[in-house]
């Protein structure tokens, strides 16, 4: 039951409130998930801390080396950013596939990350980009790799006094590319049934110098597929290799989702999705010359 809604005028005030009564308040930015919980009386805290209007949390900075996105940046603002589309096609595609236009107009990238959904669309590409999260609290700043942020389904490593300020990752350079693919039940308004994002760095055209693979909706939270990365790193890319790795991916999914009704579908579907994403990432990397 909500008893109070607080809309502070400064970020400092937000951090003070989090510091003093962090355990009793819930942050609300876009609210596209939270409002449903409030309506269904699943929301247990008594206070809402409204951070939707802070311009300080809305930015996309792309420098030569680093890119950072403010946690309050709405998906529509990311989708309408031509630089993001050009440099990080996989991330752009993932953001574009979130919900529907109306949801992208409200929903923020920080909310998508902190909500801890296994199917959060923007998370696999950010994992593949090896992003770091910048968490701020009253007196300190903490940088945590996104891959360590997820603890369990719906549970993330955000301390009660902390606010996610921004997401930071390396700006892609020559021979690097990122791709994203998702399977949903329909084209729009679809929750991911499976998603996959791959970052690749090529050398001499077809030699994989570095690769990072992340999946969504294939476990308790979006995760890196390190085993597969090891199979592909420092290898010459070929159809045979991709087939072998995709078979192994099916096997991993089978083990991970054992006993779940979706296992048979996901086991088969991931292999095609993986190959498609990998080919797209290679194409992207070749484009960035």
């Amino acid at each position, binding site marked *: 039951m909500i008893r109070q809604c607080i809309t502070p005028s400064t970020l400092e005030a937000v951090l003070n409130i989090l510091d003093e009564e962090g355990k009793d308040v819930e942050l609300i930015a876009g609210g596209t998930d939270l409002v449903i919980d409030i309506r269904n009386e699943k929301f247990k805290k008594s206070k*809402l801390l409204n951070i939707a209007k802070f311009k300080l949390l809305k930015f996309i900075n792309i420098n030569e080396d680093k890119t950072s996105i403010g946690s309050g940046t709405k998906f529509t603002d990311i989708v309408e950013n031509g630089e993001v589309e050009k440099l990080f096609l996989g991330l752009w595609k993932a953001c574009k596939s979130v919900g529907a236009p109306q949801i992208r107009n409200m929903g923020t990238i920080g909310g998508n990350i902190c909500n801890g959904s296994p199917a959060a669309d923007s998370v696999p590409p950010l994992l593949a980009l090896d992003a770091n999260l910048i968490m701020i609290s009253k007196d300190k700043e903490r940088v945590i790799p996104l891959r360590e942020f997820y603890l369990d389904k719906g549970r993330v490593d955000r301390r009660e006094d902390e606010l996610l300020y921004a997401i930071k990752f390396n700006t892609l350079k020559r021979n690097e590319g990122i791709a994203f693919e998702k399977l949903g039940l329909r084209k729009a308004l679809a929750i991911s049934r499976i998603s996959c994002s791959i970052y690749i760095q090529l050398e001499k055209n077809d030699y994989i110098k570095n690769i990072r693979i992340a999946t969504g909706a294939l476990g308790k939270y979006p995760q890196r597929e390190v085993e597969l990365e090891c199979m592909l790193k420092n290898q010459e890319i070929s159809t045979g290799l991709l087939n072998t790795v995709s078979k192994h991916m099916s096997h991993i999914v089978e083990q991970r989702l054992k006993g779940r009704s979706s296992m048979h579908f996901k086991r088969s579907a991931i292999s095609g999705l993986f190959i498609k994403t990998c080919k797209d990432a290679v194409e992207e990397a070749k484009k960035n010359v």
Partner: protein
Amino acid sequence: MFRINFTINNKGYTVDVDEALRLVDLLRDKFQLTGTKEGCAEGECGACTVIMDGRTVQSCLVMAFQADGSNITTIEGLEREDGLHPIQRAFLDAGAVQCGFCTPGMVLSSKALLDKNSNPSREEIREGLSGNLCRCTGYNKIVDAVALASKYLKEEESDGASENSRK
């Protein structure tokens, strides 16, 4: 209670709202703007779409306090002194309305789309309306209506321009 200032259909209001009230409830129950429909109540169907600061949102997913300081357009705000808005006219002329429950949301999503892109392709129209579901029919007539609305709006603009040049 939480006090908010906002504009609905170009008129400013100050109201006290319950913290747990959603925008759709505020519009329908307090302002009797019942053109905004509530369908699924979880952001899937788009029947409750309104335009907030130039962008469409689902009013079932927005808390009333989040509307503080914003400018909202509902379907009631589209009609002009001389009659229906060209998009509304296009929906009627194209036969894009069956039961009509999804229509206010469809029309507002069309407006947000056409405000940004006055000449959308059929694909862009489908993309722009992808957050609005219609359970009566297929979407072809609705896409036709948006294409027709784009034509009406352009005609209106060129009529206005030629009138101005005559002056």
